[in-house]
């Protein structure tokens, strides 16, 4: 990982102001009624979108559709300015390599060590071993797990697996990060550690991201805190201030029922949004 905080979006391939991700009228179904219906949203450079919603409304499907792991039935999904809805699978791999994804349960390769898991992309690119070791150590230091270098995923706790998964997603300096319920099923202390890492990535590297969660406390922590690099810790923003680049979306029954800022969310008249917030 590069320790210089620079914008993650490569200006040579993506216009500075154009969205990194854009969904236009996207509908997805699997042998039945649509899981997602007529979804529209975009993620701008340096923007963090938090996708809220109860379990089973299609949040993970939407996230997987973002980097082409799931194909839409109709509509257009633009990733780094390219329409991936019509792209061949073979053409997708290069685009996906520019994104980092953290799966719900980590999805670490259980037959590989932590070092080989984190370095997976680098190994495929045949980068020299010495450089791989250095970059893996940097990534593991970033998530506070440098001592797990030689361990196997089976000997890690759930929280440690997620942090290794974050290190794996970050090691290639991705231009977009996708977090699928990174704190799901974790205790509050570990959840806060994970959120702190995500906030650190957001504020230090300015990487645009989409985070799926059904935990409101995590979402509100992200929008009301910033990463203080001097203290090397997440600190609360002054009373009444929120992070302007962190905004919310909410799904219910496959439809996008909310897209806006934290203030718009808490003042929304939508009965489902109100019920969800309560």
């Amino acid at each position: 990982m590069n320790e210089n905080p620079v914008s993650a979006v490569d200006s040579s391939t993506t216009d500075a102001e154009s969205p990194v991700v854009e969904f236009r009228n996207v509908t997805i179904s699997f042998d039945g009624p649509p899981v997602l219906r007529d979804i529209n949203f975009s993620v701008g450079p340096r923007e963090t979108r938090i996708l809220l919603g109860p379990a089973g409304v299609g949040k993970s499907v939407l996230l997987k559709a973002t980097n082409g792991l799931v194909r839409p039935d109709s509509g257009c999904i633009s990733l780094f300015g390219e329409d991936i809805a019509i792209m061949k699978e073979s053409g997708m791999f290069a685009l996906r390599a520019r994104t980092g994804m953290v799966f719900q349960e980590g999805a670490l390769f259980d037959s590989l060590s932590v070092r080989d898991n984190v370095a997976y992309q680098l190994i495929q690119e045949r980068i020299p071993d010495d450089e791989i070791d250095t970059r893996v150590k940097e990534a593991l230091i970033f998530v506070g797990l440098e001592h797990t270098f030689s361990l196997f995923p089976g000997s890690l706790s759930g929280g440690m697996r997620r942090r290794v998964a974050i290190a794996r997603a970050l090691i290639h300096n991705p231009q977009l990060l996708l977090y699928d319920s990174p704190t799901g099923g974790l205790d509050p202390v570990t959840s806060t550690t994970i959120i702190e890492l995500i906030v650190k990535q957001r504020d230090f590297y300015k990487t645009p991201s989409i985070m799926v969660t059904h935990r409101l406390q995590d979402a509100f922590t992200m929008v009301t805190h910033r990463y203080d690099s001097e203290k090397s810790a997440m600190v609360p923003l002054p009373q009444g201030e929120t992070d302007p680049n962190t905004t919310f979306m909410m799904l219910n029954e496959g439809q996008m029922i909310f897209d806006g800022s934290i203030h718009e969310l808490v003042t929304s008249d939508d009965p489902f949004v109100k019920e969800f917030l309560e």
Partner: protein
Amino acid sequence: MAFERIDRSAKELVLTVQDYFLFSSRAVLNIFSRPFYWADLIQQSDIIGVGSVTIVIFAGFFTGGVLAVQSAATLASFGATAVTGRFVAMSMIRELGAVLTGIMVSGRNASSMASELGSMVVTEQIDAMRALGVDPIRKLVTPRIYATVAMLFFLTIVSDFCGILGGAAVTVFMNNQNGTQYFSMAYEFLQFPDILQGLVKPLLFGFLIASIGCFYGMRTTGGTQGVGRSTIQAVVFASVMIIFSDLLVSITMVSIFNK
């Protein structure tokens, strides 16, 4: 209702066959483009080939022995026990060596491929691989197919050799016949079409074992129960397809060489 069910099942069958052909052709054609994962090919060759040598040696040896026991008893009634060697060698090389090795390797490796890839699917490791920009068919399936094809070829030769040795052991030590006569009969009547038939089959069987094992593994759904289901389906279909394709190859070869 019954008609609708038959209609749906028929469509599912056609779709599955279509998916299988697309899947396996993509996996095979990957060798013509980069990257090719040589290290995975070597690793899989070790797991499939070296790992299966012991069972293939024993299965081949005992099968050859059984052939000698059974054939000697029948041939004795015609006063033709001298041709035991020819009978064992022909049976092993043309037929049993390839089929038995195929079925043994299918039980061992088609099941392990289906369960390994199936577990990776249900724990999202395959999705993670795709998300990291790596093609799972190229990385996981292509090396397995080529490794199985290559290794089954050599395993069949080992099985044929051990089968003839097993037959010799029974002929010499149990039936008290001449070993030199056994080996000369085994060698003398062997012709090119016999060997060709015996060595073409493992190439086809190897492809079937690996492609079916990987295909069912990669389509696993339904958690750990689904992994078990995929494993059973892979072994059953691979075994049935080995015997079915053996019939087709035998008919074709016999009609070509008239032998």
